[in-house]
């Protein structure tokens, strides 16, 4: 089904109608073809905006192996009991029905850059004129000694949505009153910089509100500091007393090993035995399909042109979201959604013409600390000196009034609904 008149009129699909059309970059074929790999905040947004803004002049295919998208963002609110699991699950149907996007439910395994084709798990190939890659992260299973893919049931990461998220909640619900939760945090750069600390807050909220006030949460961090630390830590003390203990690397002296069978974590400072559960959030890197295609260094993220979101290694490929190195922009859903709009504009302009405005970027990350107590950090960014550079930033302040924190949480909830509508509706 093609976009409706209203969708085209109200969307920036109007861009094509109102702008002077340039010469299409792709001649001699019915429609230029765009393949989008990954249906998260980067990919779903890019697919929608390219299809909508080109008014059907570009054939857009979205390759996503999962039937639904389960948001990482707000998965901590599920863990904290503020949302049902169903509330963080979304479907792709509108992208096909309203915007004419072809949905391919399969895993994209390889990029044939020379042939400009995507290879699916079943060997099928999909040709493209432009490829938008938004595969998210892969976990480095060897980044914590003793931990592995096999250990992720006993010591879950919960850093990719789905069963892992639910496993974290199950284990939290089973923590005894005097139990100890150990959270091992990842080194920079990783998905959702404030995420581990919001999660610790949700752990404490659940423990406190279920009367398990003797339980404690130990955060072992490889970083000297963390996102919104100056706001999180006083709030933890105010809300949860001594329940949450954060230890930086100078204190714990490194994670020496974990034993998933016994629930043991050994650091240079102390050994934690018989932990109620251990949440290992490991180091991360760009998704395999990007690394395997030579778009990212081993174990790293994809370099991009900050003015276009194009890979610096291949001008036909755009890399969005957690998989790219976006300079000062954090790896967040907001960032990925924002970057997708820059890429969509460039793709549409290159393939079917229309205006191409200078890239600009923005991000905000909200984190819930307790009921009606949320904090936020964000800023605006611009291409500068070959990278996306921060221009101005803002952050919640310690000691803000209850009313401000309540309003911040109301924003957080409204943002979730808006960004999901922006991606999927």
């Amino acid at each position, binding site marked *: 089904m093609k976009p409706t008149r209203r969708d085209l009129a109200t969307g920036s699909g109007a861009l094509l109608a109102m702008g002077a059309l340039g010469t299409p970059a792709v001649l001699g074929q019915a429609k230029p073809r765009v393949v989008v790999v990954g249906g998260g905040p980067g990919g779903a947004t890019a697919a929608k905006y390219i299809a909508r803004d080109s008014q059907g002049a570009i054939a857009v295919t979205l390759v996503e192996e999962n039937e639904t998208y389960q948001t990482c963002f707000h998965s901590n609110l599920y863990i904290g009991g503020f949302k049902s699991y169903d509330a963080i699950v979304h479907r792709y149907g509108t992208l096909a029905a309203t915007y004419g996007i072809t949905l391919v439910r399969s895993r994209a395994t390889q990029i044939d850059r020379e042939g400009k084709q995507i290879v699916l798990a079943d060997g099928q190939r999909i040709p493209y004129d432009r490829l938008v890659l938004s595969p998210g992260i892969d976990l480095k299973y060897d980044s914590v000694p003793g931990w592995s893919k096999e250990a992720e049931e006993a010591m879950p990461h919960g850093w990719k949505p789905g069963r892992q998220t639910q496993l974290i909640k199950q284990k939290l619900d089973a923590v005894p009153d005097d139990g100890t939760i150990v959270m091992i945090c990842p080194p920079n750069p990783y998905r959702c910089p404030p995420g581990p600390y919001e999660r610790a807050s949700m752990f404490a909220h659940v423990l406190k509100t279920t009367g398990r006030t003797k339980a404690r949460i130990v955060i072992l961090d490889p970083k000297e500091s963390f996102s919104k630390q100056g706001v999180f830590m006083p709030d933890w003390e105010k809300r949860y007393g001594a329940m949450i203990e954060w230890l930086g690397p100078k204190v714990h002296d490194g994670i020496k090993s974990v034993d998933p069978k016994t629930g043991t974590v050994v650091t240079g400072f102390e050994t934690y035995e018989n932990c109620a559960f251990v949440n290992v959030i490991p180091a991360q890197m760009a998704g395999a399909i990007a690394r395997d295609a030579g778009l990212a260094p081993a174990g790293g993220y994809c370099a991009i042109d900050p003015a276009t979101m194009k890979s610096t290694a291949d001008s036909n490929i755009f890399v969005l979201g957690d998989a790219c190195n976006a300079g000062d922009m954090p790896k967040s859903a907001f960032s990925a959604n924002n970057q997708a709009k820059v890429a969509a504009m460039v793709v549409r302009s290159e393939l079917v013409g229309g205006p191409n*405005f200078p890239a600009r970027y923005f991000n905000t990350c909200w984190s819930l600390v307790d009921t009606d107590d949320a904090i936020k950090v*964000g800023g605006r960014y611009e291409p500068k000196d070959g990278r996306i550079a921060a221009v*101005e930033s803002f952050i919640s302040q310690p000691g803000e009034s209850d009313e401000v924190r309540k309003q911040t949480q109301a924003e957080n909830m*409204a943002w979730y609904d808006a960004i999901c509508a922006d991606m999927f509706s």
Partner: protein
Amino acid sequence: MVRDGTDRRSARFQAGLALLGCSALLVTPGHAAGDPALGAYLASECTACHQLSGRSTGGIPPIVGWPEQQFVAALDSYGRKQRDNPVMQTIAARLSPEEMAALAAYFGSLQPKP
């Protein structure tokens, strides 16, 4: 009393300000005559938080269908940090008068979905 469309849009606008806790009087700079194509692009930054349908779940006000001058006035006052909200202050600070007018023209041209 018969209310025309402008009155209804103004009422929605005022409701939006109320949601943000804004009480400052509106300033009304000159007529907005924005470029809708530029506005459509710039609007993509807004739609991460403000739904294009005009729907809202309360914490972030709808911005669809506002009178253009009032829309520009609100952005202008955020840019001058006369209204409280660091997200909006940061966004508005980098918008030129032409860009504010473009956004006003674009969002003003839309009607909220039921």
